[in-house]
């Protein structure tokens, strides 16, 4: 502070800039390397089915409607398998088509809808049931089965309905 000559200030500032700059470059490098290693492509079931083997081996994230009849869990091997049906990936589109619970319902009922087999090592979560929305991360195997590493479920529950049943009936 006592040293207030312009040249000393400039060299000080330069040191801070170089130090901070080097640090930021290191952070950016970490971001790039982490993105390469772990980022996931978000796809719909339809996109995945039509893309063939293009995405095999990549980190993927898929969303779809759980087909309740297809849920099979083998406690011996701890393997869970089920089908998900295609739903649009875009929230606005879902809203246009009549809301999430309606879209999920239609997706499961319509047998023409593209479906994807999910395999997951682990037990069935509480919310895994017919017409729930499943969001899965994992990879696509060469035989077209999606090997999920993580599965997240959302149910459009009755909490979201505005009027109670007694009122509607």
């Amino acid at each position, binding site marked *: 502070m006592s*040293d207030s000559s312009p040249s000393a200030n400039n060299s000080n500032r330069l040191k*801070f800039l170089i130090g901070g700059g080097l640090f*930021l470059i290191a952070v950016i490098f970490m971001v790039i390397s982490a993105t390469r290693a*772990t980022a996931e*492509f978000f796809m719909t079931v339809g996109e995945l089915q039509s893309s063939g083997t293009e995405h095999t081996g990549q980190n993927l994230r898929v969303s779809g409607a759980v087909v309740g009849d297809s849920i099979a*869990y083998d406690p011996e091997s701890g393997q869970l398998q089920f089908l998900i049906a295609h739903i649009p990936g875009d929230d606005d589109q879902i809203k246009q088509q009549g809301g999430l619970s309606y879209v999920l319902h239609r997706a499961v009922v319509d047998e023409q809808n593209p479906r994807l087999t999910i395999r997951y090592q682990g037990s069935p979560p509480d919310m895994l049931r017919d017409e729930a929305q499943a969001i899965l991360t994992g990879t696509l195997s060469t035989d077209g089965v999606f090997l999920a590493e993580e599965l997240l479920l959302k149910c459009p529950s009755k909490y979201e309905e505005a009027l109670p049943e007694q009122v509607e009936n």
Partner: protein
Amino acid sequence: MMATLGYLTLALAFLLAVYGLLAVLLGLIQKTVPWIESARLALLLIFPLVTISIASLVFLLVELRFDVAYVYSVTSLEMPLYLRLTALWGGQSGSLLFWSWLLAGFSLYFGVHKWRNDDADLLPYALLVVFFTLGFFLMLNLFMEPPFERFWHLPDGSRVLSVLKPQGAWLLTPADGQGLNPLLRHPGMIWHPPALYLGFVGFIVPFALAIGSLASGRRDRRWLELSRPWTLIAWVFLSLGLVLGMRWAYDILGWGGYWGWDPVEIAALLPWLSSTALIHTALLQERRDGYARWNLALVLLTFALVIFGTFITRSGVLSSVHSFAGSDIGLPMLIYTALLSLSALGLLVYRWRDLRSSHEPEFTFSKETLTLFANLILLSILMVCFLGVIYPILSELITDTQITVGPAWYKRITGPLFILLVFLVGVCPLAAWSGTNLVRLKKRLLIVLPISLLVPLVAWFSGGVRHGVVLAALWLAGFSVLTLLADYAGRVATDWRRKEQHPAAALWAPIRRNHRRYGGLLVHLGIVLMSIGIIGIEGLQQETQATLAIGEAVDLGGYTFRFEGLDHREEQAGWLVTEARLAISSEGDPVGTLYPVREIYPNMGMAVTLPGLQSNLAVDLYAILVDWQPISQDQATFRIFYNPLVTWLWIGAGLLTAGVVVALLPGSSRRKDVQTVQVEPLAGQKLR
């Protein structure tokens, strides 16, 4: 009639906020005090009014008045009193009203504070911010998310939701409510939302003071002095809110972890990071008289992030564990956030040149340089987290494919940065404010670094840890604990030698003399201990899944877990509770029993998995009952976790809280002078 009362008081409060806003504007245009004074009095009325409003909602909840739609949606007959109270923040509209109530409470500061004459120029602009924010949130409560709507039968046979009685309608009262989401019926959930909200809302005071300072063209750091306790209070509640949320996730969500890098969690972490940076550079401005721009930018950023966090949590724009309700308040919140952030930013840019300071930090090993470095790290973590949240949107705009980043991404980038921060916390006590004695530093490092090697050595030999990165991280954390303790011990020893005090008195003396410094030290110690817990669970967690018949056992982390049986019972309202018994033994000696539970709520179609947990300072044994064979009842599937050191996370959080309390104790020795200036009443004075 309580619903009507609650609604009317809310409407009055909203009108007062609008009036206050207009009065301040008039006062500023006419440059007269009476309008400002009138606005200040209006502010004094808002808090009692919102209190009456929220009290009526609490009354309706406690009385289980199911004709009120909000009460119907979050309570039910079988809920005990404390859950009916916490149902206040169990749903969207209740929690927003709670938000507004806290906001009105904090805003009271501007009405009650005895404004010194030379601070009077700050007040009108601060009031402007407060009224604008209050008005906005009260508007949400009144028009977008009203908690007082009731069910009505209309004469034509239809049913509607309305606050006031429609013509010729009669009330419809459901026999029972839907009840609070079972996931929210947990002690952690009782305290997590209020703590977090207090943390969020508390930043209104520093923010409004900063805007007041900027708008009135002040260049001093008076706003920082005034806001210091409020920043610390908001910060500690934000910290507690985050930790309580972790504890809730750990105890209820049953995935064996405490933090899932969920967008909503990150949204709460962002203001924590920026306010942590603010607390540190505020200290620099106090000592060095620079950094005025920096601190203003940080407080503006913090409040913008608070509003952004509220927006993310409450609008349901992102899917996460917090999406308990969808909502339409997204757009108005976005507009408010944009308006507030942009005008604050514009103001800062407008005053930028006036805030220039002659102070130039020296690039030497000093507390100042270290603080700046810590700031850089904190803000880097903030940027990375923010990037992670917006990555899906960004990638879709650029490449047309949505790319998302998950926990692995965050951990890889922020892990090293957090460890570096923990190390800096330990280095800081070794540095002087300027001109650190490098010879002495070297001597100290040569003592402290080898001694702290004991920590990884203990982990290696008695904990069996072989993970290189974890050992290194533990070494650095151990180093920081040691330097922090040594800093305090050194002061105690000097005191004791110099004054020959009683040892107990010498222990307390440094803290008594300098609350701020040793409060801060305690906070740092808390942070380092928390990091040890996080290193443990992130780096050393072990996990297994097994299906066991009664009498069978599985091994994990040197422990044996034997399945002893299942108990089924039915509790009130038809909940089915299944509890398993897992006996733990270590090398043949019994250590305890875990009781993992699964609760099924048939009427809600939900199940909740509660882990069985046994913890000590070294390790948590944590088991989840995944599945069982309902007929034979002799087989069940478990997920078992071995979570080392995680208890230190909770202990550290306790120390951190204690540290802030110490730092806030009145009568700290430093800078008493600012308190002693003559106080004159504001009313009747002309504005400059």
